[in-house]
C-alpha cells in the first residue's frame, strides 16, 4: 500500500472523503516522513506540532459533520517562512527576525486555515527570498531530496524539498524571479507562479513588491489547481490584487492541446541551456506537436535584458522594503550609543551578505543622479518586455522553455559567484517582469538522475490555458519517479 505521505492532494482528498483514512492519519504519515528526511534535507525551519494536530482533529470533525471546506481540508501544508503566521515564528531565514511571532495571519494563510488545511510547518528559504539555492539561509541550507549533495533550488527550496520528499502534500512559496518554479524544477515537482495580483500579497514579507507572487508547489498539475483555488482571488487588503472573478482553472485540464499554438522562445532555448535539459524540453515540444499543437518559433528580443533590469528593480524595491528591520519595534536589536548606531549595527549583524549586497545595489540604483540611468532605465526595459510578450501572444497561445538552464547543482558551487547564481533564473525572470503566469512541470531525469523542469508561460489571467498545456505535458512525460535518496543515510 502507498504510504499516505506520498499521496497527491487530489488522491488524499478523495481518501479522506471516502473515509479510508483520517486527517490525523495523514498528519502522522507526514510526521513519520519528516522524521526520516529532515536530518538530511532541512526543509523545515519549524514544525508546528500542536497547531497541526489541532487542525487535523478539526478537519476530521468537520468531515464527520459533513462540512466540506474544499480540497485542502485535512491536508498537511508546508509554508515558506516568509508567509506571516499568527503566533508562529516567521523568520524569512534571517537572524534579524529570529523569534518573531507575528500578531496576524496573511490573507493566503487565513484562506488556508478557513479551507481546513493543516499547517504543518514553516520551510527554509534563501534569506528574504534572495537566492536560487536556499544556501543563503541564516539557519543552514536545505538539500535536494534527489541528491543531498545538491541544492534544492531556491528561494522556496524548503517547500520544494518537503513536497518532493513527502514531508508535506503541498507547499506554498513565493516567486519573485523564479523562486517557486526553479526549485520545483530542481526537485521534480510542479511549481506555479500565478498572474501578478491573483493571490493576495497581504502577509507575504516583501522582497520586491511589484514582482512577488505567492503560488503552490505540488506533485501534480491538478494539485496545483486545487491549491490555487483555495488561496487565489480578490483581497481588498492588497491594492494590487486583481479585482475581477478568478478564471475557471480546471476548464481545460482534460482538453489536450490540439489546435493550440505553442511558442518556443528562441532567447530561452538553446544557447546557455544545458544540452541534456534542452534535449528533454525539445522532446516535450515534439510531443505537444504530435498531440495536435502547432509549434511557433518566436523571438522576444528585449528579454535578453530582463536579468539586468530585474537586478535593478528587485534590489531597489527591497532596499525600501527591508528598511523597516531596524531593531526599533521587533526582531533583533543590537545596542548602540545613538539611535543611528543601534539601527546600523542591528542591520549589519542581522542581515546576511546577499541581502546586504542587494540593499546596497538597490540604494545605489535609486540614488539622486543615478535613478534615471538605473531604476528608470530598468523600468523602461520592463515596459519593452511586457510589449514583447504581448506581441508574442498574438502569435502563440502559450510560450514554452526550460524552467532552469541546468538541473540541481552542487552545494557551494555558485555561492562564491553571485552572477552564476543569478543566471539560474534567466528563464523564469521574464514572467515576473511581465506579471504573467508560468508553471514548471517535471518531464524526466537527466543522466545523473536529476529532474528536468519544463516551463509553460501564458498571458495575464491565462491560467486555464497554462494548466491545460501543463496537464498535457504531464500526461506525455508520465513522470512518476519519486525522490528516494532523502531517506537514506544521513549526509554530514
Amino acid at each position: 500500500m502507498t504510504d499516505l505521505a506520498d499521496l497527491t492532494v487530489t488522491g488524499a482528498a478523495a481518501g479522506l472523503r471516502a473515509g479510508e483514512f483520517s486527517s490525523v492519519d495523514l498528519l502522522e504519515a507526514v510526521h513519520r516522513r519528516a522524521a526520516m528526511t529532515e536530518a538530511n534535507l532541512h526543509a523545515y525551519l519549524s514544525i508546528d506540532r500542536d497547531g497541526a494536530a489541532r487542525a487535523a482533529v478539526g478537519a476530521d470533525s468537520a468531515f464527520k459533520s459533513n462540512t466540506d471546506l474544499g480540497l485542502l481540508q485535512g491536508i498537511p501544508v508546508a509554508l515558506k517562512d516568509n508567509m506571516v503566521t499568527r503566533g508562529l515564528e516567521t523568520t524569512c531565514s534571517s537572524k534579524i527576525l529570529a523569534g518573531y511571532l507575528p500578531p496576524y495571519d496573511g490573507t493566503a494563510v487565513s484562506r488556508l486555515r478557513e479551507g481546513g488545511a493543516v499547517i504543518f510547518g514553516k520551510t527554509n528559504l534563501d534569506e528574504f527570498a534572495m537566492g536560487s539555492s536556499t544556501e543563503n539561509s541564516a539557519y543552514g541550507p536545505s538539500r535536494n531530496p534527489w541528491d543531498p549533495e545538491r541544492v534544492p533550488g531556491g528561494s522556496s527550496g524548503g517547500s520544494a524539498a518537503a513536497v518532493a520528499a513527502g514531508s508535506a502534500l503541498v507547499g506554498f512559496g513565493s516567486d519573485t524571479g523564479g523562486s517557486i518554479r526553479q526549485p520545483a524544477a530542481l526537485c521534480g515537482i510542479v511549481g506555479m507562479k500565478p498572474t501578478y495580483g491573483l493571490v493576495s500579497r497581504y502577509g507575504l514579507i516583501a522582497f520586491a513588491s511589484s514582482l512577488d507572487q505567492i503560488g503552490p508547489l505540488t506533485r501534480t498539475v491538478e494539485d496545483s489547481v486545487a491549491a490555487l483555488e483555495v488561496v487565489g482571488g480578490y483581497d481588498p487588503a492588497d491594492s494590487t490584487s486583481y479585482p475581477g472573478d478568478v478564471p475557471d482553472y480546471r476548464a481545460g485540464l482534460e482538453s489536450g492541446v490540439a489546435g493550440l499554438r505553442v511558442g518556443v522562445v528562441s532567447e530561452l532555448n538553446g544557447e546557455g541551456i544545458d544540452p541534456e535539459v534542452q534535449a528533454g524540453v525539445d522532446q516535450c515540444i515534439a510531443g505537444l506537436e504530435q498531440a495536435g499543437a502547432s509549434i511557433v518559433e518566436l523571438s522576444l528580443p528585449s528579454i535578453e535584458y530582463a536579468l539586468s533590469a530585474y537586478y535593478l528593480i528587485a534590489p531597489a524595491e527591497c532596499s525600501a522594503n527591508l528598511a523597516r528591520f531596524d531593531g526599533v519595534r521587533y526582531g533583533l536589536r543590537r545596542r548602540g550609543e545613538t539611535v543611528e548606531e543601534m539601527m546600523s549595527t542591528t542591520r549589519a549583524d542581522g542581515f546576511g551578505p546577499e541581502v546586504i549586497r542587494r540593499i546596497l545595489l538597490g540604494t545605489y540604483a535609486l540614488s539622486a543622479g543615478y535613478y534615471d540611468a538605473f531604476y528608470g532605465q530598468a523600468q523602461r526595459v520592463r515596459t519593452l518586455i511586457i510589449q514583447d510578450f504581448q506581441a508574442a501572444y498574438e502569435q502563440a497561445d502559450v510560450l514554452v522553455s526550460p524552467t532552469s538552464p541546468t538541473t540541481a547543482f552542487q552545494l557551494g558551487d555558485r555561492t562564491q559567484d553571485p552572477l552564476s547564481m543569478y543566471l539560474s533564473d534567466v528563464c523564469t525572470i521574464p514572467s515576473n517582469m511581465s506579471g504573467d503566469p508560468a508553471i514548471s512541470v517535471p518531464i524526466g531525469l537527466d543522466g545523473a538522475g536529476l529532474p528536468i523542469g519544463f516551463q509553460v508561460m501564458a498571458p495575464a489571467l491565462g491560467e486555464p490555458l497554462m494548466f491545460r498545456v501543463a496537464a498535457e505535458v504531464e500526461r506525455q512525460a508520465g513522470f512518476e519517479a519519486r525522490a528516494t535518496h532523502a531517506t537514506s543515510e544521513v549526509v554530514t
Partner: protein
Amino acid sequence: MTYEPVIGIETHVELTTESKMFCGCAVGFGAPPNTNVCPVCLGLPGALPVVNGRAVEFAMAIGLALNCSIAHQSVFSRKNYFYPDMPKNYQISQYDEPLCIGGYLDVQTGSETRRIGITRVHMEEDTGKSIHVGEGGRISAASHSLIDFNRAGVPLMEVVSEPDIRSAEEARAFVAELRGAVLRLGVSDAKLEEGSMRFDANVSLRPKGTEPFGTKVEVKNMNSLRSLQRALEHEIDRQAALLEAGDSVLQETRHWDEAAGTTLGMRSKEEAFDYRYFPEPDLVPVEVDDAWRDRVGEAIPELPAQARARYLEMGLDPTAAGLISRDVAFGAVFEDAVAAGGVSQTVANWLTGEVTALLRRSETPLASSPIDGAALAELSGMVDAGRLSASAAKDVLAGVVAGEGNPAEVARARDLVQVSDIAALEPIIDEVLAGNEEAVGKLRRGDDKVIGFLIGQVMRASGGKADPAVVRGIIKDRVS
C-alpha cells in the same frame, strides 16, 4: 540697498478623516499611546497599505478650494529615510505626480489683496511621535525614548505655495487664509498648538527690482501665526544684515527659537538627505474621474475669501469683513443677525468688538455661547431705537453671555431700558442745572463744550438710563 523678501510656504495639515491614510485605525488626539495601531500603520512585516478614499476627497476639496486642477491619475511614492518613529523607514507620499496642481489663494493684507500661487497639494502619511524620557524632554539628555504610533499613518496633506509672498505679514495672512479655508471645508481642525497644522517657510532676499532669486533658507518650528511672522521678520533682517555686510547667505535649514526670538542653523543642504523617491509598488495610481471631482467640488461651501467679498458688498469695512469671514461661527451669527433685521455694520461692530472681548474673557467659543443672530439683531435694534444707550448695551450683552435671557429680558431685569420720556427726565435735568450754576452760566455765554459735562451729570443721576439725545434737547431748551 533695499531688499525684497521672496517667501514660499509649505503647510502640512492633518486631515480629520475617521480612519488613517492607509488602514482602518481611528484618527484621534489624546487616545492612550499605541492603541490606535494595527499591522499596517506599525509597518509590521507583510502588511500592505490601502488608500483611504475619504482622505483623497478631503485633499481634493482643498485643491479645488485653492483653484487647483485635479490630476486624473496621481501616484504615491516612497520617501526613504531612517527615523525611529517612522515605522517603515519610508514615508508614503506623493512626489512627481501629485493629486492637485497649479492653483492660487487670494490673500488680503490691510486693504491690499494679492494672489499667491499654489504649486501643488499632495497626500502623505504622518509619522509617530517620540517621547524622550529624561531631562527637558530633549533627546540628548534622555535616558531612553518611547514611541507612540497613534499618529503614524494619519492622513496629511501638504500645500506648497509658489515663492510669491513678499513680506512676513503677507506670509501670516496667507497661512491664516489657508487655515480659514481648511476650517470652512471641515477637513481638519487645523490646530496650530497641537500640530494638526504646521508650516515651514523658504525665505530668500533679492535687491528690489531684480528678478533672480537669492539663496534660500528653510525656516522651521513655528507653531503659531505670531511666531511665523516674528520668525520671518527676524530671518529677513538676518539675511539683509548679511548681504549688507557683503557676506553671503548659506543655504540651510534654520530652527525658530520662540523664547530667544532667533533662528538657529540646523543642517546645511550639502548634507541633506537623498530621499530616493520611487513609485510605491504596493499601491496603484489614484484615479479621479470628472464625476468624482465634480461631486467633491459641488459639496464645497462658501470659502472665507468669497464670504469676505460678499460682506464688502453688504457694506462692511474691510477689517470687519476679514475678521467675520475667517470664522465659520462668526459668519453664521452675523448672517443670522442681518437676516433678522440687524444693521450689518452695527452687528459686525458688536461681533468684532464687545462680543469677541466677552467671549475671550469667559473662554467660551461663540458656537456654544447664548449669543446668536436673533439676540444681536434685537440688541442693535434696541440701540438704534434709543431704548438702550451704548454703555447699557454692553451690560445687556454681558447678561446675555451670562445666560440671563434675551436682550429685552436682560435690559428689563437689570433696569437698563433707556429713559427718553421727557416728563420723567425734566425733574432730573432741572436738579442738575440747579446744582451746576457755573456750567450753566458758561453755556449761556455760548460755551457749547460744557453741554457734554451737563449731559454726563444727567446720565449719572439717571443711572445711565437717560437718552442723551433727548437730554441734550431739554438742556438747550432750558438754557436758551
